[in-house]
């Protein structure tokens, strides 16, 4: 399903002007600094803000010059930054509120959401009796209960503490894999983007500055996302063999295989691997006398300056992309050029799921 939207809105100190055509699959993150218009864009998609514009979702036109489909007729689920549960209803009453008003008499999505979010034991409680993390889980289940065509989430983790964030993230990922509902996810956290997003829309000053597949966007050297301390690349991989002798797990991807200490994973699981640019060093020849296990053949794709002393190198490994941050001196010694074949030594990899 795709969304086409051309929206223009001006508030007193801020204007949003977007022209977007996105195909919705998996989780699409809208990312940008605060004040960039992320929430306004999401609210516009939900019909909570009136704009002059055009909005088409799937085959249905939600907004045009003469037509504005009100929020309650849009098949959406919306998770606000704060859980915003109805205080006068029980947890069950909250969740069923959407289901009772949907045209779909199919409880399966609601039941599945309750199961996935592990809130069955909370159903008879009052909203006020729940912890922050529990409330947000209930809010997510409530948004899903009407089996919406799209789930819109506005920084659903921002109001939670670190502990509750870690509690919710796996659930979001489960929703992603278990329910076939595309999610549009507003966030200003790079970590959440790396963890969840399949696609990324970058918003800056009310305008879309770039959009595309997550792995590609994270390694685009012309975007600020690939620069700075936390610059990292993302690789989709599949869990392979387990080495009983050394207690190591192998993880396969298009460019070869990673070796990581044993993880609670079973063969065939899909995982995301995040590799920070500063953990990747480059050598001309494949080193053998080294403690580093993850050494991969790579091809230089692009080089950009990173401050005065360093350069950022985008590398191709199989069909995937890697970032490496090295000193300008090293780059000169290695005689780095686009197209050059090298070996990347990867000091550490983070498994995101």
């Amino acid at each position, binding site marked *: 399903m795709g969304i086409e939207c051309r929206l223009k809105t001006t508030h007193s100190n801020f204007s949003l002007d977007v022209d977007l055509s996105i195909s919705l699959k998996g989780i699409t993150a809208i990312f940008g600094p605060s004040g960039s218009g992320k929430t306004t864009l999401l609210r516009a998609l*939900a*019909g*909570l803000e009136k704009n002059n514009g055009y909005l088409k979702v799937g085959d249905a036109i939600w907004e045009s010059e003469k037509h504005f489909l*009100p*929020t*309650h*007729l*849009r098949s*959406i*689920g*919306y998770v*606000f930054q*704060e*859980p*915003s*549960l*109805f*205080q*006068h209803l029980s947890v069950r009453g909250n969740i069923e*509120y*959407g289901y009772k*008003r*949907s045209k779909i008499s199919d409880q399966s999505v609601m039941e599945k959401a309750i199961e996935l979010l592990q809130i069955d034991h909370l159903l008879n409680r*009052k*909203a*006020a*009796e729940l912890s922050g993390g529990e*409330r947000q889980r209930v809010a997510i289940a*409530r*948004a899903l*209960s*009407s089996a919406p065509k799209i789930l*819109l989430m506005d920084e659903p983790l921002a109001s939670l503490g670190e502990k509750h964030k870690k509690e919710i993230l796996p659930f979001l990922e489960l929703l992603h894999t278990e329910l076939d509902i595309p999610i549009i996810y507003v966030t200003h956290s790079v970590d959440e983007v790396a963890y969840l997003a399949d696609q990324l829309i970058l918003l800056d000053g009310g305008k879309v500055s770039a959009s595309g597949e997550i792995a590609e966007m994270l390694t685009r050297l012309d975007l600020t996302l690939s620069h700075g301390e936390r610059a990292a690349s993302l690789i989709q991989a599949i869990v392979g063999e387990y080495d009983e002798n050394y207690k190591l797990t192998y993880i396969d991807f298009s460019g070869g295989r990673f070796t990581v200490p044993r993880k609670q994973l079973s063969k065939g699981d899909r995982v995301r691997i995040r590799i920070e640019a500063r953990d990747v060093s480059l050598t001309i020849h494949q080193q053998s006398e080294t403690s580093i296990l993850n050494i991969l053949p790579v091809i230089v794709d692009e080089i950009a300056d990173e401050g005065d002393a360093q350069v950022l190198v985008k590398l191709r490994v199989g069909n995937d992309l890697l970032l490496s941050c090295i000193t300008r001196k090293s780059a000169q010694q290695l005689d780095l050029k686009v197209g050059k074949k090298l070996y990347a030594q990867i000091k550490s990899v983070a498994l995101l799921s």
Partner: protein
Amino acid sequence: MLNEFDLNALIVTLKLAAISTVILLLFGTPLAWWLSRTRWKLKALLEALIALPLVLPPTVLGFYLLIALGSNGPLGEISQWISGQPLAFTFAGLVVGSVIYSLPFVVQPLQNAFSSIGSRPMEVAATLGATPVDRFLTVAVPLARTGFVTAAVLGFAHTIGEFGVVLMIGGNIPGETQVLSIAIYDHVEALEYGNAHWLAGGLLLASFITLVVVYSLNRRFSLFKGGD
């Protein structure tokens, strides 16, 4: 003890308060909702108009009502045309007066209650597929229930206590427009302090008990309002 006149006055008073309260709630709820949501520039004007009975001497209000409800007044003429008699010195006239007189006591608590809900719960309900009327009835009204209790009790109690307006437009007709507060006045005028004591003491006690009930209900309700 209560004599027949006092009993009639009690019945008229309760009837007046009950009818006025029902009308006030029906009329005041949409008005309060609108006031809590609108960004209309002249909103302050309307709010001031509604609050006028709080500060005006009841006799001023009663004077203008008497003119409006009388056979030459606009409301009186309409009434004359419909029922063949003007509104002044009738029970219906008293209801009109009471509704206007007690309007701020109903509208203000409701407006405050609706305002304190904020727009978020209504937005949530909209994203869950609730129509505007549906979300008003299933979200705004239950969340504003303390406001409704306060509004109903204040509207009722204030109508029972009114004196000046009734005196101006009611005419003190026993069994028709004579209410308790005026019956007390009559007893005192006639130096029937015993009868006055019965009525005044009864009103005092009833009012006190009502307020105690309201305040304790409000406390219980507020327990549900935990943070979010």
